[in-house]
């Protein structure tokens, strides 16, 4: 009898606790007015802008301020504002001039700018930051090299000079990127040690920039909380606090947004995006973006060493089918190797679906009975497996039998890297951060290009591109009259030689609560939380 009473007591306690709790904390509402809550895919693994980690690409731009920034366009027909690829405006730099040779750029730095640590921004910070990137030899150094920068000179506390060995068309745009970031060098020197002169260990869990936000708390792998930098030189951000929490599972992220538990979520599938759009309280805002989904064909391997085979592959794919089935109608067809809207980009559409023509080209290349090839794919992007499957179906119609091989995400990145490039035919998207055709082709289509994953190599293309990129920009001019025709020709050559099958541009999709306003699409696909506010 006593035993039964105890059992009943325990049961009653458990049930009442659970019921009590469920009443006390149902699904939480995110609408804590000046706090922005984000369900992220990954949390940064450090705050060094030269070491790009998942999540870091979203958070680091909030902590640092660039010398210049892209101007923002008015809303387009779909209500989206994007960066204006042709115009930059001053941020940490208030003015700049270049000499007649285009190799010396002198910047006047903004006065009165302070970091969260209270240190004043000077030319020393710019020099220290670029020297850091050079010493590390990673992303910042790569950008330094391709923009022809050989030295950064501190002229006066408010004047800094960049010296280039040759003029460069997109140098000023490189300065609008987050890397090399501009650090508070006074603070960084304090945390540096003889064995770690650049304070890289400290940067694993801290940051010292001049951006609108600073780190409040950081728990690696779980959550980071940012708060507004009280010393920021522009007006304080609307969101004074940002909670960036890791929610690795995409269906959970979608449900969190739909239930109002968070304001913003990252990386959803197209089905989830449709559900977000059908909820009256949430919206997936879509920009044309800079993602390009393509099939890469490495001309080093048979049968892709024959241009006719590569062209046949292009003719044998109905892109609209891929757009409909894989991307559920989101996005647009690729029209060439460069994203439309980038400086000097052109529409080079050539390959309308034509299975007969594809078969003729294969026959002319010595394959009258068609070919059998292996298509490698991964899950690097959520759409890759479906793209591979759809391509297999499409190519079958032109007697191209495709065997699919799935490899890991790490493998596809590793095997397509500049040091390996051992895959003949594979699916991989590309994204170029500087919105310039010359930069884009330099990255993806010359032998030294880090994103030239299929090893495309045309010496005359490479030298012409070098010439086009070594032209100084005509400041204030929307279109470069000298450079754009050169780049147009190169884009046409690329399409003619077809090292890729140009498939789809899925667009950049950002899902958020409908009350969040102010979002601007940027080429690094990282929204600036400073731009955002909550409508009443």
């Amino acid at each position: 009898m006593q035993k039964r009473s105890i059992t009943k007591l325990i049961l009653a306690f458990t049930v009442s606790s659970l019921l009590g709790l469920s009443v006390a904390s149902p699904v939480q509402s995110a609408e804590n007015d000046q706090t922005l809550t984000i369900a992220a895919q990954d949390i940064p693994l450090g705050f060094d802008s030269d070491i790009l980690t998942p999540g870091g690409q979203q958070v680091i731009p909030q902590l640092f301020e660039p010398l210049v920034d892209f101007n923002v366009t008015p809303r387009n027909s779909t209500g989206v504002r994007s960066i204006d690829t042709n115009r930059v405006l001053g941020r940490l730099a208030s003015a700049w001039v270049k000499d007649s040779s285009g190799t010396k750029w002198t910047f006047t730095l903004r006065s009165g700018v302070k970091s969260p640590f209270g240190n004043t921004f000077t030319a020393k910070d710019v020099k220290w930051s670029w020297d850091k990137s050079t010493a590390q030899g990673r992303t910042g150094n790569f950008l330094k090299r391709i923009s022809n920068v050989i030295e950064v000179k501190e002229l006066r506390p408010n004047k800094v000079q960049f010296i280039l060995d040759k003029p460069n068309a997109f140098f000023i745009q490189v300065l609008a990127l987050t890397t090399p970031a501009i650090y508070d060098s006074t603070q960084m020197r304090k945390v540096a040690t003889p064995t770690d002169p650049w304070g890289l260990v400290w940067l694993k869990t801290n940051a010292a920039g001049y951006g609108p936000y600073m780190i409040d708390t950081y728990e690696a792998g779980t959550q980071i909380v940012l708060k507004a930098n009280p010393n920021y030189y522009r007006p304080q951000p609307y969101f004074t606090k940002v909670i960036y929490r890791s929610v690795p599972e995409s269906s959970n992220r979608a449900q969190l947004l739909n239930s109002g538990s968070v304001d913003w979520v990252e990386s959803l599938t197209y089905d989830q995006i449709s559900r977000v759009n059908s909820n009256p309280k949430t919206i997936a805002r879509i920009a044309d973006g800079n993602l390009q989904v393509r099939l890469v064909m490495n001309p080093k391997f048979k049968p892709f060493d024959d241009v006719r085979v590569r062209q046949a592959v292009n003719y044998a794919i109905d892109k609209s089918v891929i757009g409909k089935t894989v991307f559920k109608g989101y996005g647009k067809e690729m029209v060439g190797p460069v994203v439309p809207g980038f400086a000097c980009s052109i529409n080079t559409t050539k390959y309308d679906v034509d299975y007969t023509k594809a078969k003729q080209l294969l026959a002319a290349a010595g394959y009258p009975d068609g070919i059998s090839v292996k298509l490698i794919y991964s899950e690097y992007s959520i759409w890759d497996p479906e793209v591979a499957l759809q391509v297999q179906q499409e190519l079958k119609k032109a007697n191209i039998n495709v065997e699919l091989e799935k490899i890991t995400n790490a493998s596809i990145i590793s095997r397509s890297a500049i040091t390996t490039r051992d895959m003949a035919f594979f699916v991989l998207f590309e994204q170029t951060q500087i919105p310039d055709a010359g930069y884009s082709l330099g990255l993806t289509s010359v032998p030294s290009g880090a994103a030239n994953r299929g090893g495309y190599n045309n010496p005359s293309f490479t030298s012409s591109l070098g010439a086009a990129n070594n032209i100084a920009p005509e400041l204030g001019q929307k279109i470069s009259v000298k450079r754009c025709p050169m780049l147009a020709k190169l884009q046409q050559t690329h399409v003619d030689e077809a090292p890729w099958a140009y498939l789809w541009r899925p667009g950049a999709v950002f899902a958020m609560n409908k009350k969040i306003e102010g979002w601007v699409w940027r080429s690094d696909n990282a929204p600036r939380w400073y731009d955002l506010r909550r409508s009443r």
Partner: protein
Amino acid sequence: MLLLRRLLRLIIRRFFLSIPLILGASFVSFGILRLSKSNPAVLIAGPQADAATIEKIGNELGLSKPILEQYVIYLSHLFSGNWGTSWNSGLPVLEEIFRRIPPTLELLSFGLLLGVLGGVSLGFLSARKQGSFSDLFTKAISLIGVSMPIFWIGLLLISAFTFSLQIFPPPLGRLGLFDSPPERITGYYTIDALSAGQFALFFKIIHYLFLPALTIAIVAGSQILKQARASTLEIQNSEVVRFYRANGVSEFKVSKLILLLASPTILTSIAMTAVYALAGSALVELIFSWGGLGQWGLTAITSLDYSVVQGYVLTLAIFSTLIFLILDIVIALVDKRKLI
């Protein structure tokens, strides 16, 4: 005294046997990572890195050295307490392991506790009422638990109890977005909240813990239930039990006897399930954004963070060995013949 000495001998013997097991696990994880075609230097260098940068990073990581040499260096570091640093985060692996063990163990212990209580009691009762409706029902439940993937069960529970019924909080980890964790003493939120006298926070932590723990409990409990039922059935039809019943021993005492005789098999099943749950909890952590050891290990595997993956596998191997060591001790105490 003799018993204690024999127990000690068993522990020492098992300890020495576990060394090659752990070394083997370290070698296999080390070898598999190195034999893959992927180059972690490429991932670390970033998408815009050139060949020189990738090569430089590869050299810094020691990837250009022969694999055997890399393994010897790794082992020597391991024995000196240096488990390496994460190539991604730069944080010491051992430090990270200690930081992430509490969330994982807290989740696992609650999940296993629910699973063991449910599995053993339902398995035992089901066998005792073989062929009844409740037996069939329990069998059906266990079949679902055994055959459904753990991540799918987790997602179903979230969909039903969080977003449809709104009984449990969203899968945001150990606490909500606006909650502050208890001051860290042990790293186990439940213990830390209780020791600080924060009872409201304690209940909130339990609330967040319940669904992920239930996910583990369903899978672990089903395995245990199956085994408990089978062992109980086997014992209750044995000659020993028939002999007891023929001598008029009460059903309560017979049940106790059956449970005692079935316990070594059930305990082994619990230990096996605990080891599986340890590995399987990684997916549960991922789904519930738990931020523990499992989620950390999975992320490291996808990003080829060698030191972390090795540290993670080694930790799993050590935990598995510990679980089986504890099992051996418990079984020896239950069935003293094992000590002879």
